[in-house]
């Protein structure tokens, strides 16, 4: 077999593998109880909860991630290397471990103080947001740093020399120039938060109608042998996923400024 066909064959193989997996779901679609499962209040609740929680978690991740990404991309400072490495912590430790660490933390005096005087996280909706935030913040920062790295600091230098303050330079030059990359980072982070399971279930539990996000609902549906509900939820996740991938693709298209 020629070199070229071997390589392309491998690529097509992966495609068929995933496509087959998704198509197999349709074997059960339309079966008894399928439509009830789709319109069940708990299903709709999970969808809404997942959308809201992922959006809020992403908002906070961007709020802290964007300035951090800028700092890592542009400045030299003591401890930068350690900081940069630490961003990978949530990517290498299991989400369940992350969630468990939160449970431990909220049992320390400081954690208890936060819960009693501030917001209750354990087995509550804020816990979902916190768990999702913890999983994606490092990733968001990393992705945004990569987009900022692509913008030559020379643009900023010229803008500064022409009289722009650092803040003005940031939103008049850096932000518009890296906008597409940043947007793609936000979308991917949101998708990651949306699909988060391990940390969320550990910290916030799996209470239907209260803390049951979509991935958790799939798990509980399977655990209680409710195949129809599981498939409905999986299909919704797949549709969301494809929409996200498509929108990331759109942002990736070279903006020609014309």
């Amino acid at each position, binding site marked *: 077999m020629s070199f070229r066909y071997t390589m392309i064959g491998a690529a097509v193989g992966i495609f068929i593998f995933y496509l087959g997996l998704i198509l197999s779901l349709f074997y059960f679609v339309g079966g008894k109880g399928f439509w009830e499962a789709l319109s069940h209040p708990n299903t709709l609740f999970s969808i809404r909860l997942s959308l809201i929680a992922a959006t809020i978690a992403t908002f906070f991740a961007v709020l802290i991630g964007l300035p951090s990404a800028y700092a890592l991309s542009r400045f030299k400072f003591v401890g930068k290397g350690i900081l940069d490495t630490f961003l990978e912590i949530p990517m290498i430790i299991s989400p369940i471990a992350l969630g468990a660490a939160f449970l431990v933390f909220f049992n320390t005096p400081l954690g208890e103080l936060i819960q009693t005087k501030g917001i209750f996280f354990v087995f509550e909706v804020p816990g979902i947001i916190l768990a999702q935030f913890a999983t994606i913040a490092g990733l968001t920062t990393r992705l945004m740093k990569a987009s900022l790295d692509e913008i*030559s600091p020379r643009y900023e230098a*010229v803008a500064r*020399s022409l*009289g*722009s303050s650092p803040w*003005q330079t940031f939103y008049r*030059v850096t932000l518009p*120039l890296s906008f597409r990359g940043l947007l793609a980072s936000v979308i991917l982070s949101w998708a990651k938060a949306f699909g988060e399971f391990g940390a969320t279930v550990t910290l916030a539990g799996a209470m239907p109608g209260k803390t049951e996000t979509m991935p958790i609902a799939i798990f509980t549906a399977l655990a209680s042998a409710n195949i129809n509900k599981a498939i409905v939820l999986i299909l919704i996740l797949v549709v969301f996923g494809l929409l996200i991938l498509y929108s990331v693709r759109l942002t990736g298209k070279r903006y020609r*400024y014309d």
Partner: protein
Amino acid sequence: MIKIEDLTILFDSFKIVDLNIQIEEGGFHFLLGPTGSGKTLILESIMGLHKPKTGRIWIGDREVQGLPPERRGISYVPQDLALFPHLKVKENILFGIKARDLDMKIYEEYVHALVEVMKIEHLLERYPAHLSGGEKKRVALLRALAPKPKLLLLDEPLSGLDPSIKADVQHLLKNLHTSFHTTTLCVTHDFEEAYFLGDGITIFIDGKVEQVGKRDDVFLKPKSKKVAQFLGAKNLYRAKVLRNEESYQRLTLGINGLQFSIPTSLVRDKMEVGKEVELFIRPEEVMIIREGKPVKDSLKQNIFEGKILDITDKRRYHLVTFQTLEGKIPFEISIPNYTFRNLNLSIGKIAKVALRDESLWVMI
């Protein structure tokens, strides 16, 4: 007047020590040095992007060291131009005026005049991606000049252009400078560019200033072999001072037994007998003597007989490699084409050359 005093910059692997530059109001000064000598770093330090270890920068009577870049009144045209790709040409040009919140009414006429000189009226609504290399340079220059900077910094302004466009932009820079008198500091490795545009020149090699002065002073009277070589000097020889006849105001140098007579007016430093010096023979000032023609008295000091070793056609002139019979010293002579055609030279031929006083320069 722009004054840069004792600037020392340590950054990554660069070490720039005690840089001093003075530029008269309205002057066009060149910082000339080899590629990779940290020239961009110097510009960015003057602008305020890097904090130098020591040094002070004065713009007029205002010390700007310690001010952020946006408050220094210095415009910068980087080598890659960095035109804002998300803004139209017009928005690029007005960026500085808007950022400084300047009154557009006051600047309108001036910007319009600049647009006219640069001939870019038809480009105002375009995005930078749709401009040619020369057009981009014009827009970048205009953007820098629009807010009337106290100092304009140019980083290799003619690099990356086709030769024909390069000449255009070079003339444009000269015109702009004669019309608008913006005090300019330009860094480049291209000494031809510096010769054409600069009135003052600082030669900067290996992190140190080697020579500062007016253009002709630097080009015609290099201080050291290093400077001469950087400026493209070829015929450089180690010579020994044999006699210093003060009554005649002439100096005699010897190389391989061959003697050269040099007017003391062409020597910068004190020359004691026995001292080792560098003799530089300018290829374009050497004359080949036509057979049977009388030789002027002023040329009689240094006449040598030799053999033609090689002839290269350089399109604009011919380069002849000549070797003296006595002492066997080879040197290059450049001869304008029209003269060359009348001389009837060929490889292997014996000829006589006269080194006029202007062709010689002595350095320590």
